[in-house]
């Protein structure tokens, strides 16, 4: 058994409209989770829109892999090269389509870039706070220096503001091991339990499917593919 003790469960809504915002520490895996979740929903035959809401450095995020994501059939609101006009850091940019993202039919998955402000960035999306369907999911990787102890995770979650559930995303890139994944996820879980925040799911790379089987967990597992290495950063 990988995780022991009392487990707070959180069920992602499977009916009606799904609106999830992925927040979290810079480089915690928000974009990976958002892409994977959007693809999962699309593959279930659902209508889904993935929104890149990095307002600080919009050209360092999904831009590079936009085309390949679209080729997979994903509807994506994000800047493409031909849509940018030389703005680097000369102003925070909000894609008008992102502002009105919730007006799209079907599910909406929001990738809230540049972590520190957490869900506060959602004030840019019309109707987000009022939406009864909105779930704010904090992505945490227990090998990140700001979230690598229970105390740090708790401190971080307090700074983040509203969080409806946590996604356990401990990994060490291509140097991950089952032990590293377990110890990181354990400390996040301990922090979450103490704060009464439920766990949405555990994200594991596809390659762990046989090695770390679902049966080992008391939590839902989502096996994911990592797309962001293709974006280089």
């Amino acid at each position, binding site marked *: 058994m990988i995780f022991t003790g009392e487990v707070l469960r959180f069920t992602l809504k499977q009916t009606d409209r799904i609106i999830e915002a992925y927040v979290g520490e*810079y*480089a915690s895996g928000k974009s990976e989770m958002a892409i994977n979740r959007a693809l999962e929903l699309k593959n279930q035959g659902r209508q889904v829109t993935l929104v890149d809401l990095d307002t*600080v*450095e919009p*050209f*360092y995020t999904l831009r590079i892999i936009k085309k390949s994501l679209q080729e997979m059939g994903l509807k994506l609101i994000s800047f493409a090269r031909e849509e940018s006009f*030389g*703005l*680097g*850091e*000369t102003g925070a940019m909000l894609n008008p389509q992102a502002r009105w993202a919730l007006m799209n039919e079907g599910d909406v998955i929001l990738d809230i870039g540049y972590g*520190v402000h957490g869900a506060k960035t959602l004030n840019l999306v019309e109707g987000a706070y009022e939406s009864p369907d909105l779930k704010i999911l904090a992505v945490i*990787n227990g*090998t*990140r*220096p*700001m979230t*690598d102890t229970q105390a740090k995770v708790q401190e971080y979650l307090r700074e983040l503001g509203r969080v409806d559930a946590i996604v356990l995303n401990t*990994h*060490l*890139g*291509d*140097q991950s091991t089952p032990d*590293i994944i377990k110890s990181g996820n354990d400390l996040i879980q301990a922090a979450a339990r103490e704060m009464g925040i439920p766990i949405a799911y555990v994200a594991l790379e596809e390659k762990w499917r046989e090695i770390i089987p679902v049966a080992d967990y008391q939590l839902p597992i989502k096996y994911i593919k990592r797309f*962001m290495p293709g974006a*280089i*950063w």
Partner: protein
Amino acid sequence: MPKVIGETKKSFVTGNETAAWACLAAGAEMMFGYPITPQNEIMHYWTRLAPKYGRGFLQTEDELSAGFTVCGSVQCGKKAFTATAGPGNVLMQEPFGMAEAMRLPMLAIIQQRGGPSSGTVVYSQQEVTLTTFGGNGEGMRIVYSTATHQEIYDYVIKGFNTAWKYRFPVFILGDGYQAKMREPMEMYDPEERGIEMVKTYPLIGLPGKITEGREPQHLCNIYSLEEELYEVVMKVAAEYESIQDQIVEYDEKNCDDADIIVVSHGVVSRAADDAVKILRAQGIKAGYFRPITLRPFPAKQLRAAIAKSGAKKLLIAESAYGQLDRLTKQEIFGETVKIENLFMPGVGIIDYDITSKVKSVL
């Protein structure tokens, strides 16, 4: 005050975070800075971490001030640093020049971005000339070009020691990719690794009285007499040249019998390393040479590699339009090996780019 690095362990980080943590681990006391992409997270993380460890931060009104405040701070004996990129690096050349003139132990982390001009925030290796020889001086500075997050960590720690030991400004030269990309690396406490951190010391307000037991410090960047300037520059140049052998660092692989040597630096050298392995596996005698210090440049070592291999060609690969190329040529002037180029300004270079180029010129 909590210890910066508790147990040594691997972390999954960006290069910018790595730089901030390395400065903390190296005992840096103060950062002065002004926001600029792609180095922003060095400041972001430093400002989040510094209060927890009793360190300081000041955001100045621009990069000129950031550079000069570092110059002031190190004169007081504080281990201070800054980080910048692109146009910020241009503005900071003035304070960097002061640091050369006054022999100030300052450290600057440069995350290169594209140019020319101001607004290009993306990856590039176009700040080589600026970082090695910028300013109205003679390039009396030490520039480490890193390739991995682990190296950013290692060379930031080493860089502070180099600065405070030799009193020349030290640069850690990364780039937009290294700044933003994520990979695992190991953070450690340098003292626990047996790395002795050079103690800092004030350059002003020293005890004793001039003429009564101590010499004046002569922290000066203004010389009104030509002869005086001549004397000072010649003295500094001689000192710089005398320490070169202790500072120069490079990496060399497969050069003993190479027909062609691929020369690259920074993140591009990772592609060059892979490319040389691929070419060797295909029976092509390729070698790999990477200057880690761009200033001083490992000229003797590159000349030796050319000599021992009898290589017919060098291939200089860089994400710039000839900045490493010019630097290399001036450093190995007189060599008759033919020099080929792979210039991809602003664009990342992968192993395939290099293997294809090598095959097309051999």
